[in-house]
């Protein structure tokens, strides 16, 4: 899931970003409303996590303006403001959920999963292609009664590819989908990730599902059913 996290305190932003990324999400972390606004126009997100107290534009104002502009992306308010009035204000501004800091990360991750389920694009907690299952909540891959947990990086790539089967995905597309905003992938990063995923799949006995289209990119192509 692609998440936009707006938090002005780097001390809090960094671990949150890390924890979310570890659970297989691709997180763009920004420190102010203006950047968030720009990114919202540039990219599509599955979830917005907003801090209330931000420099210049508050999280509430940001949320209100997104809602006014017709943005339906699920939004989670993450703030130190804890009174009932604050919560009412936050939810009325258009947030779908409200969490008071300091928040237990396990709770935050559970709420993020809950918000994903609420999305109109949700198709279940599991992606399936032939006998291959990818469990989105546990990051586990299952193939013919064998299963194991993928690393978050493998999981992100596999999820992306499983959502776009039989399509040629260019290096640039993969980079844009998997790398968070502001982080520059090295020139051979995509190649390295593909190699690692192929290796992980091979351990389950899945071979040659990821085809290389020379000079262009890759294609996730499960064998035709017998």
């Amino acid at each position, binding site marked *: 899931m692609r998440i936009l996290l707006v938090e002005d*305190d780097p*001390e*809090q932003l960094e671990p*949150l970003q890390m924890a979310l990324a570890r659970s297989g999400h691709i997180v763009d972390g920004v420190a102010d409303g203006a950047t968030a606004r720009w990114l919202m126009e540039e990219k599509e997100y599955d979830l917005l996590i907003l801090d209330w107290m931000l420099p210049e534009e508050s999280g509430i104002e940001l949320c209100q303006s997104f809602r006014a502009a017709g943005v339906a992306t699920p939004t989670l308010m993450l703030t*130190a*403001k804890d009174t009932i009035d604050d919560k009412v204000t936050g939810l009325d501004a258009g947030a779908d959920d409200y969490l*008071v800091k*300091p*928040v237990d990360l396990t709770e935050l991750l559970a709420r993020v999963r809950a918000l994903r389920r609420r999305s109109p694009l949700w198709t279940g907690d599991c992606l399936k292609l032939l006998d291959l299952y990818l469990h989105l909540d546990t990051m586990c891959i299952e193939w013919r009664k064998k299963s194991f947990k993928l690393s978050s990086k493998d999981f992100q790539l596999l999820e992306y590819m499983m959502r776009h089967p039989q399509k040629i995905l260019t290096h640039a597309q993969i980079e844009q989908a998997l790398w968070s905003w502001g982080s520059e992938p090295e020139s051979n990063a995509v190649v390295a990730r593909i190699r690692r995923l192929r290796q992980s799949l091979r351990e389950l006995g899945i071979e040659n599902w990821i085809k290389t289209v020379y000079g262009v990119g890759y294609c996730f192509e499960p064998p035709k059913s017998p």
Partner: protein
Amino acid sequence: MPKMQFDKWKVLPVRLRGGIIIAIPVICLFTSLGSFAWLKASLEEDETVVQQTKMVKLETKRLLTALVDTETGVRGYGLTHREEFLAPFNSSRTVIPESLKQLEKLVQDYPQQKQILKEIRTKVDQHLKILQQKLNLQQELKRIQGQEERMVNTALLYDWLEEGKEQMNATRVAIDKFTQKQEEILEVRQQHHLLYRQITWIVLCVSATTGSLGAILAIILFLQLERELTARETSLQNTNQELELAYSQLDRFTANASHELRAPLAAVLSNAQVGLMELEDATVDKSFLHQRLDKIVNLTKSMSTLVGDLLFLARNESLLSIESLEVVNVVDLLRSLVPEWKTQARSQHITLTAHLMAEPVLVKADPNLLRQAIANLLSNACRYTPANGNIILRLNCENQQVEIQVEDTGIGIAPESLSHIFERFYRVNQTRTKATGSFGLGLNIAQQIVQAHGGKITATSKVGEGSTFRIWLPLEK
């Protein structure tokens, strides 16, 4: 000395002082009006007396003339035996009783004069009687003799007349005395009149002076009072502004404190938890690191609870505002709390039972705060009840009071500690508190909430047997 008296005046309540200020000119006005009315009345009385005396004088003159007329009439008739001389006599005879009657009316207020008038009346009657007798005699003589030429002897006639004269003189003297007396009364009255005129002037001057002085005093007192009230208002406004400022400062403080205290806690907690996640992936055994990070996570969580409790206390220090209170059904409120706490109790192998009634029990309350107070009691009960224990939540309703009771079969509280358990940060026993992870604010918060609702909270306990906490709230009719 006057300053001291002024200070005494200043101590009096504003209502009384305002009343006195208004009373001064009003009293002056009414006193002057009253004295003028009284003077006017007595002057008018004097005037009446003067008028009466004048009329009495006129009337006595008329009476006297009439008397003289009778005498001359009879005398003329005696001398001439001519009927025309009798005309004045006859007319006077009708005038005299009229005149006497008039006089009687005029002097009815003066007993002395009345007495004299009585005497005059007898004398006049006698005089008239004598004259009538003489006249009758004359007429008899005239009828018997039938001779007009045979006149009565003049000498004899004079004798007759002289006889009546004495009577006449006595009447005259009596009338004179009467008139003189009336003159005296008039004189007294006139003197009286003069005196009253002087008094009027004096009263006028005095009331004008007191009135003016009273008005000046009233104005001075009023101005002073106004100054004082203005000063009071200004000082009230200042106090109000200060209070508002203090309140907004407190508001800002709690908002800022909320952010400032929570932000580092949030950072510590997330970092520690991310550290734990990283460790999960580590292949080598680093269980000691795991323990450390676990400790950081737990400490941060309890620190966060403490910050939350302190902020709650700071925000709700003062009494609840009336607007935030609404009519709440306690049965519904408790029913909504029970499942959550049943789960919590079950996780600690404790049985939670609730004895609630079916019919609604209404109280005026802030539902969120009331829920917090009851939750704190339930949380305490869970914390201090060992496994296999029981917690019973009861709701009773009697004497216009709602009683919410939380009973546990926990470790109990020693009698010497029981009176302190509602104090902030009070710890019954250091080790116990550490083991159960509480800061000693929960009961204080519960007490503060209940007291803010006009209720009370009590605790009874027996060490080793358990404790019972009761919340009493006034029933909403």
